[in-house]
């Protein structure tokens, strides 16, 4: 139990755990679950935005969107690597995703029905993600923290781009402005739910906070987020679909409308509008690409054999 003592000491000192360090099984399991879910979210999260690459309405927007979706693939790769340092193999994580056994952020099970959704995702979804992720840069597990530093830098760029898309639309033709408002209306509540259930219904959070993986509670983060977008929406000249939203001076808290946690749980369970479609697309890409991966592996094996023969 030298290992445990060292671990506890590092956590107590708000230090960092490296892959070679001893760590409790539950800590490892929790991290594998969280980091792989995060990786899956990046990979599945490519789809709703990729849906508009071919139809982006200007070449500049097309370029920005392509770069963004491609960045998400990169984030997925860093995060799978971080999870691999904990002993999970990428193949097994990818398989769990395809078989519907792994979770990912439920927001990506909503469709992008029109161009403005790309803006709303950038502003609201990436905005919520950053709110969640900035504290994770200081997560006690060092490789996760390092991956998050890279991710957050790019995400804040993405959020700004999403905001700019909405700003252009909001200052555009009446049809463009209506499109922007409609997208914000649809993504507002799902974005607030990205922080997870209310604190009193989130049993795992305490342990994660003790381990310095998580730094703030779901409701705390949601508070900060809703406060931020309540300000930003004014710059856009749009509204949030929440007539109850206000800052309560007594409690120093933002009061927002009741969120539909039944729908949230239903989407998590696989019954959202696009869950089946998202998984099938991933499965199809994986299956259609199997011969390519097999060829690459066979070629690599042949090359390394050739190298050995020469040596």
């Amino acid at each position, binding site marked *: 139990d030298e290992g445990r003592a060292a671990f506890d000491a590092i956590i107590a000192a708000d230090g960092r755990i490296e892959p070679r360090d001893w760590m409790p099984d539950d800590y490892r399991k929790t991290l594998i679950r969280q980091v792989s879910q995060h990786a899956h979210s990046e*990979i599945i999260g*490519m*789809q709703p935005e*990729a849906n508009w*690459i*071919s*139809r*982006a*309405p*200007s*070449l*500049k*927007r*097309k*370029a920005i969107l*392509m*770069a963004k*979706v*491609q960045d998400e*693939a*990169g984030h*997925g*790769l860093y995060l*799978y690597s971080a999870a691999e340092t904990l002993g999970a193999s990428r193949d097994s994580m990818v398989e769990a995703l395809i078989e519907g056994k792994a979770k990912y952020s439920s927001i990506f099970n909503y469709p992008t029905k029109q*161009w403005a959704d790309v803006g709303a995702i950038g502003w609201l979804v990436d905005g919520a993600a950053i709110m969640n992720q900035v504290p994770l840069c200081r997560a006690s597990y060092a490789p996760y923290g390092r991956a998050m530093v890279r991710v957050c830098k790019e995400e804040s760029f993405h959020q700004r781009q999403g905001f700019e*898309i909405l700003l*252009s*639309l909001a200052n*555009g*033709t009446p*049809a*463009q402005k209506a499109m922007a408002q409609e997208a914000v209306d649809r993504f507002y509540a799902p974005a607030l739910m990205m922080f997870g259930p209310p604190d009193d219904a989130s049993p795992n959070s305490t342990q994660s906070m003790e381990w310095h993986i998580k730094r703030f509670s779901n409701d705390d983060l949601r508070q900060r987020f809703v406060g931020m977008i309540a300000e930003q929406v004014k710059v856009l000249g749009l509204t949030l679909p929440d007539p109850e939203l206000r800052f309560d001076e007594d409690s120093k808290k933002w009061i927002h409308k009741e969120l539909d946690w039944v729908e949230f749980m239903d989407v998590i369970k696989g019954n959202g509008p696009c869950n089946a479609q998202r998984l099938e*697309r991933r499965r*199809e*890409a994986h299956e*259609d*690409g*199997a*011969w*390519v*991966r*097999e*060829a*690459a*592996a*066979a*070629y*690599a094996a*042949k090359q390394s054999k050739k190298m050995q023969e020469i040596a």
Partner: protein
Amino acid sequence: AEDNAEYALWLGDDSLILAQRLSWWISRAPEMEEDVALGNIALDLLGHARSFLTYASKQWGKTEDELAYWREEEEFRNLRLTEQPNGGFGETIARQLYFAVYQELLYTRLVQSTDSTIAAISAKALKEVAYHVDHATQWCLRLGMGTDESARRLQHALNLMWPYVGELFQDEPLNERIAAAGIGPLPSSLREEWDQRVSAVIEESELQVPQAKAAMAHSRAGDHSEHLGYLLAEMQVLARKHPGASW
């Protein structure tokens, strides 16, 4: 200057249409590393397209987006190879090999163009295209020497794309004027080196250089295959629903 603009339009359209095709792979590639790699190549090509189209559009008092979104099918000048469907990964790699080697040879010559804008765009693009050639080459080797199935698939793909190679080297009247003015090479002057380089990759990959003759084509005059109409319907649909809008 009309000739320079028209020539820039040809160069821009090739890259634009191929970028549109390639970008489909982002979120669908055989491995996640390829989502990134094919995405990079598509982005590079879109970048070249924007530079060339912006240059062309100025001559006509237009914008890059007016050229990309508001021309009709018969006004596009891209080569047929660039509009061929993605097919599977093998077809995409075959198309990449043929096109990237062509583009590298072309840009290498364009760096010396008497048109300083075309020379500057090409010089910048050339570094990126060298990576595109390398990417396609590495995949040819892997697929050609990987498994029996991958060799069979890539061979089929190389054969399938081959009929559209001939057009890359077809000299049009504009090319004669462009060459005479020192703006760019005659396409036919690139063929020999292209054949050598592409054959070398195919042979190193232990596959056969296809033998089929070129399909009749005249894309530089706006005469396209049946594929382009579908691509443009999708690419242009949103922009055209909002005439005059800014994005």
